[in-house]
């Protein structure tokens, strides 16, 4: 019985985090790192995983502490918890993957003010038990990473003619503006619009299926 219930829960969390409540494509949170780090696929994935790691651990700790944190200072407490984990991630990256740390630069410390993490702490972890908070963190993190991966793939392939550093076609045929800041805004806009139309089609099919039943 218990097993079955947790199975249902996981698929619900997965659907929420990746599709119906995707942090970037639906909630439009965390746009700054999304636009800034998706010039190459490697950077995008690196940013996604770093932020996801902070999100999972901060969700866990905040959920464990939810009965001890006084309501009036909760935001400050969340920020301290998040900043602590960001510092850990920052130091680990500096020690083990210095190249990634260098290319992400400013945006690693800026995970502290990433709205997704604070929003999940406030909206979910502060009200739920540790296990579901971790699951929420995992799938929100995956949703965030997938969105970054999609945008980074579009931008790297079209803008530089490479995918994860492998050359797909000569750089002369690449649309260079897509790698520039202007291209970042435009391609994210188009990606969100495309995602909207896909989820609208899925919704329609689900409703049709229900009606037929």
């Amino acid at each position, binding site marked *: 019985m218990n097993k079955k219930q947790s199975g249902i829960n996981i698929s619900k969390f997965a659907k929420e985090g990746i599709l119906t409540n995707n942090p970037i494509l639906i909630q*439009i*949170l965390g*746009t*700054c*790192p999304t*636009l*800034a780090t998706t010039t190459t696929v490697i950077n995008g994935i690196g940013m996604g995983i770093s932020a996801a790691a902070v999100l999972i651990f901060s969700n866990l700790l905040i959920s464990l502490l939810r009965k001890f944190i006084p309501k009036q200072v909760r*935001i*400050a407490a969340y*920020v*301290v918890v998040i*900043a*602590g984990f*960001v*510092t850990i991630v*920052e*130091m680990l990256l500096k020690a083990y993957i210095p190249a990634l740390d260098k290319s992400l*630069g*400013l945006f690693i*410390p*800026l995970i*502290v*003010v*990433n*709205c997704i993490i*604070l929003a999940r702490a406030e909206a979910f972890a502060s009200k739920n038990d540790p296990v579901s908070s971790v699951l929420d963190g995992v799938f929100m993190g995956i949703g965030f990473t997938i969105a970054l991966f999609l945008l980074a793939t579009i931008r790297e392939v079209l803008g530089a003619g490479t995918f994860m550093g492998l050359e797909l076609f000569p750089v002369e045929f690449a649309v260079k*503006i897509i790698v*520039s*800041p*202007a*291209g*970042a*805004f*435009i391609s*994210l*806009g*188009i990606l*969100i*619009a*495309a995602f*909207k*139309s896909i989820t*609208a089609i899925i919704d329609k099919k689900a409703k049709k299926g229900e009606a037929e039943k």
Partner: protein
Amino acid sequence: MGEIFMIMIAAVLTENFVFSKFLGICPFLGVSDKPSTAFGMGMAVTFVMTLSSVVTWIVYNFILVQYNLEYLRTIAFILIIAALVQFIEMFMKKYVPALYQALGIYLPLITTNCAVLGAAIINIDNGYSLINAIIYGAFSAIGFTLAIVIFAGVRERINFASPPAIFKGVPISLVAAGLLAMAFAGFQGIEIV
């Protein structure tokens, strides 16, 4: 003097926080609906960013560096900014109620504005002196204000347009922001020596 002038121009135009550094996009997309509110938000950010540039610079160089605690930079800076915003809010409420009426509602949002923390960190990473840090903080915020005020004007027009249904809302705003970013990219052609 030349260096200061260069920092000013770079912060406002060529390396605009919103359009080339991607800092402060959340308030940029969220708040800017009317030019007047966008201007209020921009002024509040300018105020906080200038002050926080000073305080974080002093704390980093005179406390963290002295005791080899550089790795605590992120935690220290975010706490300083949060405390500073709270303090400014209380101070304004008591002594400058007129200003509080105008800017008060934007202040709580500023703590999680990545532009403020971003400016503090860039000041340290670039190794600016205190004066340069103040100039950089203030003028980046002015660049941010410029961006959100212009964009609020664009947004007013978008509200009357009828884009395809799936582009309504954020997607069309992002595309418009992209076009504005292209205009700002034009400033990068200006070389300042």
